[in-house]
């Protein structure tokens, strides 16, 4: 149990359409993350699943049952809010017990369930404290505890870690992943943080302007983005996109001219491509020093030394946007000193004039196969 289907779901606020016909199947026990920029409709979509927003059109189906008109409590779901939404006048125990008190559960059941949830979340010693006495991470755990005691089939998380500092966020990511394994429940998680999405998700749903831009496993989105939006959104720093012109194509390769060089890329070609304008994508972390398949002479005007890596921002001739490159470790690169950087043709992505990807000839299974 815990299977969710969205069928052409639409949400409008007055004249403004926020969610524009989203269809999605979430499997039982799956950890699905919604990501996207501000205003893309990800939180609205979550609130529609929760039952906090009315669905303008389309169906929300949980375990085969249409739930559009059911209140949250009858949908078998629980939600953890970004702002925790704890009851400040109640103790941790009472906060976690709240849903059980609402359904008038017997006192011994309440005690047992609250203590079990507290044990899972390491809140055993905090049960008699009030939210005001807890740290941010502990408060968020209380909010999760309140969701756990209801034993829902689907957990909804609305940016639950965005109010925590970086170190605590990393800890809570691990805790949530552990919790997902322990409970085995379906979890739908909204975030704008792509590290959370990449590290926790079984599948990521990238939303853009109320549409699904792509659904896929984290590494699928990274290695095979279907369009320039996903290519730019997944990966940090964002992918470089360089204008290119197609000069030849075959079933498994496309030859382009880019920055005055002719390159043959291992992407699926198609008819009518020759002569058209394309965009060549290369992730900054795939750029290396020296001469490779494609070599560019760049002059970095800003160099960020982060210790574990060196980030360069360079201007390319005839282009306003920066060309970014990330080099591992600490490199002796200086501002305004020209240098040669390059990248392999096999690391490149290619997008047509509409921004849709030409499929890369990459074997994802081979990339993610266990080492050794």
């Amino acid at each position, binding site marked *: 149990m815990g299977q969710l289907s969205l069928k052409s779901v639409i949400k409008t606020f007055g004249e403004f359409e926020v969610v524009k016909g989203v269809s999605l199947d979430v499997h039982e026990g799956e950890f699905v993350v919604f990501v996207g920029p501000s205003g893309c409709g990800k939180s609205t979509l979550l609130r529609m699943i*929760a*039952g*906090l927003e009315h669905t303008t059109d389309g169906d929300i189906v949980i375990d085969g049952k249409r739930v559009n008109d059911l*209140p*949250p*409590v009858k949908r078998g*779901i*629980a*939600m953890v*809010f*970004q*702002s*925790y*939404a*704890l*009851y*400040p*006048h109640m103790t941790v125990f009472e906060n976690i017990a*709240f*849903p059980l008190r*609402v*359904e008038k559960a017997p006192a011994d059941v309440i005690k047992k369930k609250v203590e079990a949830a507290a044990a899972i979340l390491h809140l055993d010693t905090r049960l008699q404290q*009030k*939210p*005001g*006495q*807890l740290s*941010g991470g502990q*408060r968020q755990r209380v909010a999760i505890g*309140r969701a756990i005691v*209801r034993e829902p089939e689907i957990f909804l998380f609305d940016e639950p870690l965005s*109010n925590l500092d970086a170190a605590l966020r990393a800890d809570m990511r691990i805790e949530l992943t552990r919790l997902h394994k322990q409970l085995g429940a379906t979890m739908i998680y909204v975030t704008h943080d792509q590290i959370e999405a990449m590290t926790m998700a079984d599948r990521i749903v990238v939303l853009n302007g109320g549409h699904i831009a792509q659904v896929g496993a984290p590494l699928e989105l990274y290695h095979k983005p279907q369009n320039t939006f996903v290519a730019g959104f997944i990966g940090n720093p964002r992918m470089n996109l360089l204008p290119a012109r197609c000069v030849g194509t075959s079933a498994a390769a496309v030859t382009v001219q880019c920055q005055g060089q002719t390159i043959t890329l291992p992407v699926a070609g198609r008819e009518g491509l020759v002569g058209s304008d394309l965009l060549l994508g290369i992730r900054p972390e795939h750029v290396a020093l020296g001469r490779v398949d494609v070599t560019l002479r760049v002059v970095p005007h800003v160099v960020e030394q982060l210790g574990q890596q060196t980030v360069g921002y360079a201007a390319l001739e005839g282009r306003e946007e920066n060309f970014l490159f990330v080099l591992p470790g600490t490199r002796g690169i200086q501002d305004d000193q020209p240098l040669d950087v390059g990248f392999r043709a096999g690391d490149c992505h290619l997008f047509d004039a509409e921004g849709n990807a030409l499929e890369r000839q990459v074997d994802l299974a081979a990339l993610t196969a266990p080492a050794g």
Partner: protein
Amino acid sequence: MARKNTDTRAMIDRYRWWEVMAIYAGIFVFLFFLLSPFIEGFLVSLKPLSQLFSSPYRFWPENGSFKAYSTMWDSVPAFGWYIFNSFLISTVATIIVLLLVVPAAYAFARFEYAGMALVLGGFLAVSMFSGAVLLIPLFRLMRTLGLLNTYFAMIVPGVAFLIPSAIWLLRTYMMRIPVELNEAAYMDGASQFYTFRRVILPIAMPGIVVVAITTFIGAYAQQFIFALTFNSKTEYMPLPVGLFAYFGKQDVIWNELMAASFVGIAPALIIIFFLQRYLVGGLTAGAVKQ
């Protein structure tokens, strides 16, 4: 204060000695204007009657005593009754106002409906009316309803005048309670009423106490004009009108009048003292990350 600032305090919080002096001087002038009538009233209550009209006028009492505080009860035997009436009228008015205003303010804070701005604006407009302007129509209304010379004549109009400002005050407070708490309770299966009773009401308590105090004081203060107009019977007379009993045909017993005024406000002070325990700031601390 200025020199005790620790290094952790922001620079903007630091004052030079002359700035501190200026602040205290400002506070002193403000308090002087605010408190001087009360101070003089209290000193008058300590003076023997003969000293009040002596020339030149003496600010500080000579042979001052609390005698007026005991003789005032003999001069106006019904005085205790007046205090009780005042207390009763204000308490009942406050309870009625709270019963009506707390759910109303919650509804105005949480639910949006067509014409809400008009209704709220209407409340504001009503509260701008001076009670005196409406005295004659109110008198006719009270007479028609047969409420003249009853407690109701002093409670009902009082409640009507106190409701608008109470709604505005409490609505503003309740709007500050994060709406996520309602949503969380709704997700947990709580009904609107359950959420109101178990979640909103306890969090809104400091706001409710503020409204209770201001309503009680308002009800105490406005009794004068309503009692004077709608009541002629001693048994229903509240304190503000009852104080006129110290105005004799020939003279005014000023020291007892002042003593009675101070004794008269004591119940209100006790109520406020009792209620202010509940004025705990930051009760929503930890509810949501702001």
